[in-house]
């Protein structure tokens, strides 16, 4: 017994110390590289910086944000892009997941191929789609028999980056949902079928509710990613207002028109917006996810 006793004591002390040692590198690193710059940015956003001329102007940059039509245009673009692309990705991803769940031949192959759009760097995918849409040589127009300026028309170019984003990430959503589908016991469907439930009823009353955790996770990742999207919009139309998202608009004031104070105010506001939306999601499901780790440990 004495031996067990001593092990326990050593463990108690050793493990607490070890926990702190194990955690320290990660959290220190994140704090220095991610958290500190946020405060630095807030500091800079209180200045007007034009080259070698700098002056403290308090919150003037933030009042300017609130009266800047370009900023609200970027908010609008970001919202349209986020809502449309996440919705379509969910619908297409769900369809793909159901197809793959049903199929028996070629499922392995499909599950592998479906990863391909996801591993291609977004900037590369964006260039490919950009040139497919481009009027010269006009591939998409020739397939659809249309004559649309996909890259410049404000409405159609938004449709363009949404379709490119859906192409790239619907498979990702499909995989998350497929994994969820595979956890639903087959018996439920059998039982429902026996009770005479139609396909749609089975989908809405069994599949959807039981998939809820997978759906929420997929929506969280996609929504946050869409809100901070930069690559597609920038590659399609640079800093032009027609596609400028929040990230692109902030970057415009860093590069195209360097006003560092204002740029930092814009990126800080973007940071706050993304965090609020993300936290809204996490507060709905985070307890569940985090709790799971804690639960398994018991």
């Amino acid at each position, binding site marked *: 017994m004495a031996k067990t006793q001593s092990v326990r004591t050593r463990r108690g002390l050793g493990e607490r110390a070890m926990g702190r040692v194990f955690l320290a590198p990660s959290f220190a690193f994140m704090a220095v590289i991610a958290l500190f710059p946020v405060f630095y940015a807030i500091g800079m956003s209180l200045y007007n910086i034009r*080259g*070698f*001329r700098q002056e403290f102007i308090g919150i003037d940059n933030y009042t300017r944000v609130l009266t800047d039509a370009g900023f609200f245009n970027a908010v609008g673009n970001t919202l349209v892009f986020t809502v449309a692309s996440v919705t379509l990705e969910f619908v297409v991803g769900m369809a793909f997941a159901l197809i793959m769940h049903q199929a028996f031949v070629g499922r392995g192959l499909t599950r592998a191929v479906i990863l391909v759009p996801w591993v291609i760097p977004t900037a590369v995918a964006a260039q490919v789609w950009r040139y497919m849409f481009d*009027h010269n040589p006009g591939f998409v127009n020739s397939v659809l028999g249309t*004559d649309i300026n996909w*890259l*410049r028309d404000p409405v159609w170019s938004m449709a363009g980056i949404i379709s490119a984003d859906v192409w790239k990430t619907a498979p990702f959503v499909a995989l998350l949902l497929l994994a969820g589908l595979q956890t639903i016991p087959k018996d439920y469907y059998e039982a429902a079928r026996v009770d005479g439930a139609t396909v749609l009823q089975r989908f809405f009353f069994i599949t959807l509710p039981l998939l809820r955790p997978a759906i929420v996770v997929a929506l969280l990742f996609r929504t946050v990613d869409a809100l901070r999207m930069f690559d597609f919009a920038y590659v399609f139309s640079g800093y032009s207002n027609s596609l400028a998202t929040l990230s692109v608009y902030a970057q415009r004031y860093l590069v*195209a028109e360097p006003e560092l104070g204002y740029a930092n105010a814009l990126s800080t506001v973007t940071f706050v917006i993304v965090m609020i939306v993300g936290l809204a999601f996490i507060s709905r499901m985070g307890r569940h996810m985090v709790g799971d780790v804690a639960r398994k440990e018991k």
Partner: protein
Amino acid sequence: MSELSRHKRYAVRAGSTGLAALGLTLATACGTPPGDKPEGEGENAGIAEDPQFVWAVTGADRQVHEAVARLWNETNPDRQVDIFFLAPTADEQRQAMFQDLQSQAGEFDVLGLDVIWTGEFADFGYIESLEDLRGEVEGVSLDGPVDSAQWQQELYALPYSSNGAFLYYRTDLIEEPPTTWEELYETGTAAAEEAGISGYVGQGDQYEGLVVNFLEMYWSAGGQLFDDAQQRSTLLEGDAAATALDFMTEAYASGFYAEGFDSMVEDDARALFQAGEAVYMRNWPYAIPLLEGEEGEETAVAGNFAVAPLPTFTGEGTTSALGGLNNAVSTLSENKDLAREFVLWTATDPRAQDVLASHSLPPTMESAYEDAEDPALEVLGGILADAQARPPVPGYNSMSLDLQESLLAGYLGQEEPEAALEAMDRSANEALEQK
């Protein structure tokens, strides 16, 4: 245990895939980046043994800049210059120079600036005033390039290289190049109909090229973007802006502009003209050798085209937008006198300017065009004499982004012309605001 070994297999497989990829890539890409283009970019060219100062300049046309610098070093062996080659794209050049200045590194003494950046660099306090050298360049350099080197009537840089636009036309379809835009429209429409091709290709995509195409028409109708003191926008004074925009709207709606004009940049226009698909083209001099088939590409128009100055709305003269570079002295330079001397030398020494001409980079000295042997260079000399600088105001970049958007919506008919022009006027005024 079998669980463990399965994981081990995965790890081995992943690891070997990774190693194979690493080996493959490293085998093809060992050493430092390659020969002709990007080498030396982002580092000193190393053309001087004991350089006294550094010239930061674009990596495009690098052999020209290098030849100029070598010439200086030959004549000034005790005061040699080294070149720092920047990226060939404008935004990246500007960012690299900003980085040098913001970080107080001050490694660049002479800055090769795009003609539209003068105001911004001056406003930011990044470049020295060269107003006292005005007498040295006036009457020696072309007027347009001198205009592009000043901000609020003060000279901040000196002209170095230039560029101007040609009207390319098909000699098998058009006898005499037009002198007015209306004539261009009429002859082009008729010839296009007859030959079953398009009338006109140019730069209609939403980018800086569209602003340039518009300004050329706007100026040729007598318009000026700003008043002389560069205090306010005069875009809406007179009817020049409306005339130019109406012409574009009409030309687009009637199909005089080729299909796809609204997403066309220099090379799209060049490809269409080269395929024999258009009567007229507005483009820079670079297209000539390509159209002649000298670069090995197929061409349907070799021997069947010529270049002329762009027409105007009045029928007199010509107006092209100026491209090119000016050289300025960094405020952080520790060798300002030497840098000033070098800047002046590149602008006004006939031998330096001849280096440009002999490499087909248009020079800025008037005398370089006087007895040009190349007929295209002679035409260009005439064009550059009347060419206009885009006003190099501090907010030029931002203004251009807004103008592009309004112009495109305007000529596509998505926005009322009055509304588009008013929006442009607002952007122009914003570009002047001292923030």
